[in-house]
């Protein structure tokens, strides 16, 4: 047989194998290559193990606690994911929380209605986001620098506006504000219908659920999101394809600040007071949660589910360490270790196999 013929036969054969192989992969791949999936598995294992080890972990009350604790982080994680997808980062979310809480808190102490206070807080947050978005998208500055600046500016404004005082005398609408932040559903007997084993999920949790569903829906089905992902995947190509890159980047930072504002108002209501230090250091928890959930710091990839599951994972670890009676000072070490581990596993799923990674390590050792 002439060599050319052999070759073409070989190619035909290979292409058939490819078809079969790839068809099989697409079903499994979408699950197995997703970092969020593996984090969910790890979360499930952790929850089952902790419930067995420490009966008080699995109680309805503790689950109410955990879900309320991570919900604000996950809400901000959704906004952060949008920014990360463009290839940017937003370091200012924690400080924006502080500013929003103080602006809303001030108006409440001036006896304004709760919706005016919340509206003003939201506007302050959106203004911060617009500032970030303008300098990143239209001026072309690095997002790290702009939002690092905003981290400092917003916190400073919060301190100045509050006169460095805690604000808690909220006037006539104080009960409404508290109700918003402390509401639960479903309620257990005697106040409600829910059985005793069911957790009473906080308003924070439900806001997170609604926002996550909305963001997930937008990510999957809208042209806006396709453009958003295009920017992170290849900004030059996106421009050349006619994607309105600058406008969408701007919107991403405004949305991120919006989520920080929502989280801030929920926490304001929950505590019934506004302190200018609210959200200090939260930017790192938010980024850690989204990255554990699989969002790429290089841009172009991230999911709503990942933002939620990553934040949940961090909180469950924190809670589990407390429940297991481990010195709380160890938390940082565990959380840090899991950030690195999650991203290492993420590298495996996105092309480089773990085997190759380990091979690389051994090669380094051998030198």
């Amino acid at each position, binding site marked *: 047989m002439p060599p050319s013929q052999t070759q073409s036969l070989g190619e035909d054969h290979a292409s058939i194998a490819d078809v079969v192989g*790839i068809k099989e992969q697409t079903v499994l791949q979408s699950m197995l290559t997703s970092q969020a999936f593996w984090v969910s598995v790890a979360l499930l294992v952790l929850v089952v193990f902790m419930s067995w080890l420490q009966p008080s972990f699995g109680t309805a009350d503790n689950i109410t606690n955990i879900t309320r604790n991570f919900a604000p982080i996950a809400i901000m994680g959704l906004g952060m994911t949008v920014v990360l997808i463009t290839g940017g980062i937003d370091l200012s979310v924690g400080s924006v929380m502080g500013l929003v809480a103080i602006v809303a808190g001030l108006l409440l102490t001036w006896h304004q209605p709760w919706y005016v206070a919340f509206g003003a807080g939201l506007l302050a947050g959106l203004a911060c986001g617009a500032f970030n978005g303008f300098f990143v998208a239209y001026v072309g500055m690095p997002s790290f620098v702009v939002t690092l600046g905003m981290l400092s500016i917003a916190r400073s404004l919060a301190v100045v506006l509050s006169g460095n005082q805690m604000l808690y005398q909220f006037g006539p609408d104080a009960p409404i504000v508290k109700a918003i932040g402390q509401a639960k559903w479903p309620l257990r007997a005697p106040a409600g219908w829910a059985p005793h084993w069911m957790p009473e999920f906080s308003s924070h949790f439900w806001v997170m659920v609604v926002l996550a569903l909305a963001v997930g829906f937008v990510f999957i089905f809208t042209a806006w999101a396709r453009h958003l992902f295009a920017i992170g995947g290849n900004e030059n190509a996106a421009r050349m*394809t006619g994607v309105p890159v600058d406008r969408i980047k701007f919107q991403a930072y405004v949305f991120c600040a919006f989520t920080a504002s929502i989280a801030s108002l929920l926490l304001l209501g929950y505590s019934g007071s506004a302190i200018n230090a609210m959200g200090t250091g939260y930017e790192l928890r938010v980024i850690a949660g989204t990255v554990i959930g699989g969002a790429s710091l290089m841009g172009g*990839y991230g999911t709503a589910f990942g933002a939620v599951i990553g934040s949940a994972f961090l909180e469950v670890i924190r809670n589990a360490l407390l429940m297991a009676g481990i010195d709380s000072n160890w938390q940082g070490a565990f959380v840090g270790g899991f950030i690195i581990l999650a991203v290492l596993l993420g590298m495996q799923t996105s092309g480089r196999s773990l085997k190759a990674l380990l091979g690389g390590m051994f090669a380094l050792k051998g030198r």
Partner: protein
Amino acid sequence: MNIRPGAGHSAPGRFPVMQATTSSLISLGGVEKAFGAVRALSGVSLDVAAGTCVGLVGHNGAGKSTLMNILAGTLQPSAGRLGVAGEDVSAGYGVATANRLGVRCVFQELSLCPNLSVAENARILHPSLKGLGWRRRAAALIGGKLDAIFPGHDIEPGQIVGDLSIARRQMVEIARAFSATDRNVRLVILDEPTSSLDGVLAAQLLSFVRGFVAEGGTVILISHLLAEILNTSDRIVVMRDGGIVADRPASGFSRASLVESMGSVAREMDARHARTGGGAAERRVSATAKRQPEAAPLIAGRGEIVGLAGLGGHGQTDMLVRIFEGARMRTAGVTVEGRTAIVAGDRQTDGVFPLWSIGENATIASLGRMLRGMLIDPDAESRMAAEWKERIGIRTPDMRNPILSLSGGNQQKVLFARALGSDADIILMDDPMRGVDIGTKQEVYSIIRREADAGRTFLWYTTEMDELKHCDRVYVFRNGGIVAELSGDEITEDRVLHSSFEPAA
């Protein structure tokens, strides 16, 4: 890594003894280089004697730069023999060996570190400038060389390279290449050295080159300015399609014979389609080059394929981007009637979304047509993907596979599908066939012709002469402006080449 034992920073006495029997400084035998399926060099043999200046000319993609990169050690040949100064260095030749043997190269893309000073950049090439006061000695070295080559220059050795103009950076780069410490200079390769220098500086450089050669040095000079080549070189080598097609003393060439030997003299002409309408067609694009706002604009009408020709980087891509932007916002000198889409030539940086599937890459420019309310209709999207898989022959079992699973040529087809499948009336193509195999090219050519006949307008920048034959009209670019407009049978390699080079001095 490529340094042989004992050769690294050894004293001159440990150099291998030079063979006095050969007078060739450089001796290449059957050098081949392939990038994937593309053969950049197909068996080049070249001897360069010490004390000569060799001019190297050829059209874009002829293989000049690849050959010089191999000499400089930045590329490894796929096959062939490489000898420098009588030493066979075929195995393990690299930049370090090249430096040790005194081979220096001034590349087209400048290779200075912009964050360091002029003197510090000189130090990088000369490890022997060390110990206390190295900065002063490096400054003296580079300053002296600058004085020798470009008398009257006003570059301070302490200046940061990033603060210098492009011309001055070029001057520093050239001076550094000619500087010698314990590391001698034997061969300097100058790749388009005068491209950013004005006439006075260029003349200074070329007279220095003559002097350097007279003292026994060797220079390989690449230039698209044929007068420079003819006046400076002792000998001229012409490359075409990865091989040497002419190699004679410079006195044996005239400007005309040089141009002729660069192009293919005997080639079959495609039968040109009979064009209907011609210039009378409905006008869609009118754009002047930024550098010459007063000159006649580039015009393109409905159903026309208009070529942008000339040497690479002479303003063709800028023109395409100008038209692309002109369709979106008011731009002086540009009027565009209709929607535009670009087919990027540099797939990796300007075209492909690497994380996406083939289908998503093809449909991104057409999402507006597939909306139901605010949402993308997934059926419409997969229909478009399937349609273009058929129409343009994308070789994949499933358009949901990742784009990176495709070969380069097929990725390029996806980019064509993206542009052709959009609702754009005007398709801008930025040398889109780079690295695409001949079969794919033929398929795409026929699609372009079909689409043009259906009324679309194509603006096609290409550096390949054969592709210009598919154009109805061609604008030749030089130095950021349009210097010639050719149509129909006027589009010949000779005409394009003659217009691409400066008028004979």
